[in-house]
C-alpha cells in the first residue's frame, strides 16, 4: 500500500469525526519567551549555532519588518494579530541518540503513528541508530523530513540520496553543512522585504527543508516534508529552499496538520525554488492545517509566500496545491519565468467550508522569450466559506511569443458561501497570447439525485461530484498523494449538505 494511503487510513481510524488530525502530543518542549524583538532573533540564531552572516541577514529582515504593515488587500477578514503574544521558538527537548524504538519518547512515536508515517520511517525519523535506509517491502520509498513545531526532527533516506549527490536535509543542517549553497540562494527568490509575512519569516524562521539536486540527476524518489504545529501559542515559520541544477528533476511533496485549538495560530512560511537550465521542479502541497470549528473558533492563519524562479532556459516549475485546511489561507505560489522557453504551471483546488476563508492564486511573470504558463484553479465553497481566486499574469515587453492559459472554475454548495475571481492581466508584449476562462456552477439537484438513485449516500455523492470537478488538478498530483487528496476533499465537505 502506498505510504500516503496508509497515512490517511491510519489517521482516519484515530478519531471518527471532525478534524482527524486534531490531537496534541504531550512532549517535553523548550520554548523561547513570548514576544518578538531583536533579542529573540539573536536567541534563535544562537540556538541554531548560525554563522554571523545569517544573523545579520535575519536582523536586516527584522528591521524591515518593523517598518511594514500587514497587507489587508485580500478578501479575508480577521481580528488584529498580537505579534508579541506568541512563542517564536518551540522544540522538542533533544536527548542522546536513541538505540532502538523502545528508547524513543513514546509520545513522539505516537504522533508519527497517528500521522501515519510507516514504522520503518518512524525509526529513521526518530534517529534510531542503525535503523537502515531500506524501505518496507512492496512500496515506493518516500524520503521524509518531519518538521515538528520549530525544528526538523529528522530526515529519512539521506544516505541513499547522498549516493546520487542529492542533498535533502533540514535547512538548519544545510546552514552548517552547505553554507555556500544556502548563502547563494537564500532570499534570492523571495527577498527579506518582499512582503510583511516573508519579512517576519526571514527574521525568525526556525527550520524547514533544504534540497539540492546536482546537474543531470533525476531524483529517484519523492521527497516529502510533514509539517506539524503541536505546541500552544506558537507560530510556525519554516523556510524551504529547493535548488534544481541543470538538467535535473525533483518532485517534492508537503503535508501539514495541527492540533485543534480555540486560538488562532500563525503559520508564515516561505518557499523558494530555483530551477536552472533544463531543470524541472514539481512541488505538490496537501494543506490540511486545522480549519477551526463550525463557528469559526480557532484554526490556522496560513500566510505563506511561495515562489519559484525558472532561471534557466527550458526550465519548468509546476505547483500543485490542494488546500482544504486553515481558517484563513493567503497564498500565491508564483513563477518567475526568466529563462527562454521556461514553463510555469499552477494547479489548485481550494475548499472552504464552515467559516473558512481562502484568498489564493498565483502570479506568473513572463520575462524570457517563448515562456509559457498554465493556471488551473478550482475553488469549492460550502457552508459559510469564502473562496477567492486572485491571480496575476504579467508579460514584459521582451517576452516575445509568451503564452498563458488561465482557467478558473468555482463550485458552490449551499446558498451561504461565496466565490470570487480576481484575475489581473498585464500584457506589454504584442506577440504574447493570453487566454482566460472562468465558470461558476452549483452542484445540481439532478446530479445528486442521479448518484443517490445508484446507491451513493449524499456525502458520497457530493464527494464524487467535487472530485470530478477537481479532477484536472488532482491528476497532477503524484499517485499516492492523489488518493489522500481525494479522500480529504470528501472529509472536508462533511456536513455541508442536507
Amino acid at each position: 500500500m502506498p505510504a500516503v494511503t496508509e497515512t490517511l487510513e491510519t489517521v482516519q481510524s484515530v478519531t471518527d469525526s471532525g478534524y482527524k488530525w486534531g490531537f496534541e502530543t504531550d512532549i517535553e518542549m523548550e520554548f523561547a519567551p513570548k514576544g518578538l524583538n531583536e533579542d529573540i532573533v539573536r536567541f534563535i540564531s544562537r540556538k541554531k549555532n548560525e554563522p554571523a552572516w545569517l544573523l545579520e541577514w535575519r536582523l536586516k529582515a527584522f528591521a524591515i519588518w518593523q517598518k511594514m504593515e500587514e497587507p489587508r488587500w485580500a478578501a479575508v477578514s480577521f481580528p488584529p494579530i498580537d505579534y508579541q503574544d506568541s512563542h517564536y521558538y518551540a522544540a522538542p527537548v533533544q536527548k542522546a541518540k536513541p538505540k532502538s524504538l523502545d528508547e524513543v519518547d513514546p509520545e513522539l512515536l505516537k504522533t508519527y503513528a497517528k500521522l501515519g508515517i510507516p514504522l520503518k520511517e518512524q525509526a529513521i525519523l526518530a534517529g534510531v541508530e542503525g535503523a537502515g535506509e531500506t524501505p518496507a517491502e512492496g512500496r515506493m520509498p518516500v524520503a521524509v523530513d518531519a518538521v515538528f513545531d520549530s525544528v526538523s526532527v529528522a530526515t529519512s533516506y539521506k544516505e541513499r540520496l547522498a549516493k546520487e549527490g542529492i542533498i535533502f536535509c533540514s535547512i538548519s543542517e544545510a546552514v552548517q553543512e552547505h553554507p555556500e549553497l544556502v548563502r547563494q540562494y537564500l532570499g534570492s527568490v523571495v527577498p527579506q522585504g518582499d512582503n510583511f509575512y516573508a519579512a517576519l519569516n526571514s527574521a525568525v524562521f526556525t527550520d524547514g527543508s533544504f534540497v539540492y539536486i546536482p546537474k543531470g540527476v533525476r531524483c529517484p524518489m519523492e521527497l516529502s516534508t510533514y509539517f506539524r504545529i503541536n505546541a500552544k501559542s506558537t507560530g510556525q515559520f519554516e523556510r524551504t529552499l529547493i535548488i534544481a541544477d541543470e538538467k535535473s528533476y525533483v518532485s517534492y511533496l508537503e503535508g501539514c496538520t495541527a492540533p485543534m485549538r480555540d486560538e488562532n495560530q500563525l503559520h508564515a512560511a516561505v518557499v523558494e525554488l530555483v530551477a536552472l537550465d533544463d531543470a524541472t521542479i514539481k512541488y505538490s502541497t496537501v494543506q490540511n492545517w486545522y480549519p477551526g470549528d463550525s463557528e469559526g473558533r480557532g484554526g490556522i492563519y496560513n500566510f505563506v509566500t511561495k515562489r519559484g524562479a525558472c532561471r534557466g532556459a527550458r526550465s519548468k516549475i509546476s505547483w500543485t496545491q490542494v488546500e482544504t485546511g486553515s481558517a484563513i489561507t493567503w497564498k500565491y505560489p508564483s513563477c518567475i519565468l526568466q529563462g527562454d522557453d521556461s514553463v510555469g504551471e499552477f494547479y489548485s483546488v481550494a475548499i472552504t467550508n464552515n467559516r473558512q476563508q481562502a484568498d489564493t492564486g498565483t502570479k506568473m511573470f513572463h520575462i524570457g522569450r517563448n515562456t509559457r504558463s498554465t493556471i488551473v484553479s478550482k475553488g469549492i465553497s460550502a457552508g459559510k466559506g469564502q473562496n477567492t481566486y486572485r491571480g496575476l499574469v504579467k508579460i514584459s515587453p521582451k517576452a516575445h511569443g509568451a503564452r498563458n492559459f488561465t482557467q478558473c472554475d468555482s463550485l458552490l454548495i449551499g446558498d451561504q458561501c461565496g466565490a470570487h475571481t480576481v484575475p489581473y492581466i498585464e500584457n506589454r508584449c504584442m506577440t504574447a497570447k493570453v487566454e482566460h476562462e472562468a465558470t461558476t456552477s452549483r452542484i445540481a439537484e439532478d446530479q445528486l439525485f442521479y448518484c443517490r438513485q445508484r446507491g451513493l449516500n449524499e456525502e458520497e455523492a457530493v464527494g464524487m461530484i467535487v472530485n470530478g470537478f477537481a479532477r484536472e488538478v488532482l491528476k497532477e498530483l503524484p499517485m499516492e498523494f492523489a488518493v489522500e487528496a481525494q479522500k480529504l476533499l470528501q472529509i472536508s465537505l462533511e456536513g455541508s449538505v442536507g
Partner: protein
Amino acid sequence: MLKIENLHATVEGKQILNGLSLEIPAGEVHAIMGPNGSGKSTLSYVLAGREGYEVTEGSVSFNGQDLLAMEPEERAVAGMFLAFQAPVELPGVGNANFLRTALNAIRRARGEAEIDAMQFLKLARARMKVLNMPEDMLKRPVNVGFSGGEKKRNEMLQLALLAPGFAVLDETDSGLDIDALKMVADTVNSLRGPAFSALVITHYQRLLNHIVPDRVHVLSAGRIVKSGGPELAQELEAAGYAGVQAAA
C-alpha cells in the same frame, strides 16, 4: 414484489397522480403506456424518491418494506433501479469509478464484500461484451459528451451491472434506433427471472415487441384506466389513447 395502492402525488402543488393502484409480482414485467402528461414520469420519480415529488395519499410496499419512508439511496440498495429518461452528466467523474462505487454501495447493503478496481473491470468488460458496448465508455466521464443513444446504453450497462430486483425504465426507448432498442430489450430480457421484475414506461408499442410484458396498463390523468395482456399494447397502437380513454 411491488404493490402501489391509491397513490396520490403532487409536483409543485399540482396534482399529478390520482389514486394509482398497481401490483407487480416477482418475476413479472409490466408496461405502462399513456399520453403525455398522464403521470408516467412522475410515477417513476415517486418510486425512486426524488425531491419535489410529494406523496399526499396512498402507499407503496416494496418486498414488504414501506418504500415511501426510505431515502433514495436506501431504495437503490434495496433493489429499486431507475433508468433515467434524461441521464445526468457528471463532469470529471469516470464511468468506471462511478459504477464501481455504486456497485459497492449495493454490495455493502447486501452484506457482500466490496470488489476492487481489477475485479470490477473484469466484470464490467464481460457485461459490455454481451451488450456490445465499446470498452472506452468505462473511461469516459459519466454521460459527458455521450450521444442520446450512448446515454441510454450507459443506463443499460448500469442496470446490467447492478442487477437490481426491480427496474423502472422511464421511456428508455425514446429517440433510439432499432439496434439500440434491441440492446435495451436484450439487457432487460437477460435479467428476467423469478427474482426480477420491471416496470417499462413507454409511449410506443415497438419496445414491447422486444420486451414482451406480462401485463400492460394504460395510465391517464394519474390513474390506471385499463389493464390487459400484451395484446393491449397492439390495440393501443391501432386505436390510440383516445379510444381507450373513451372506453374507460
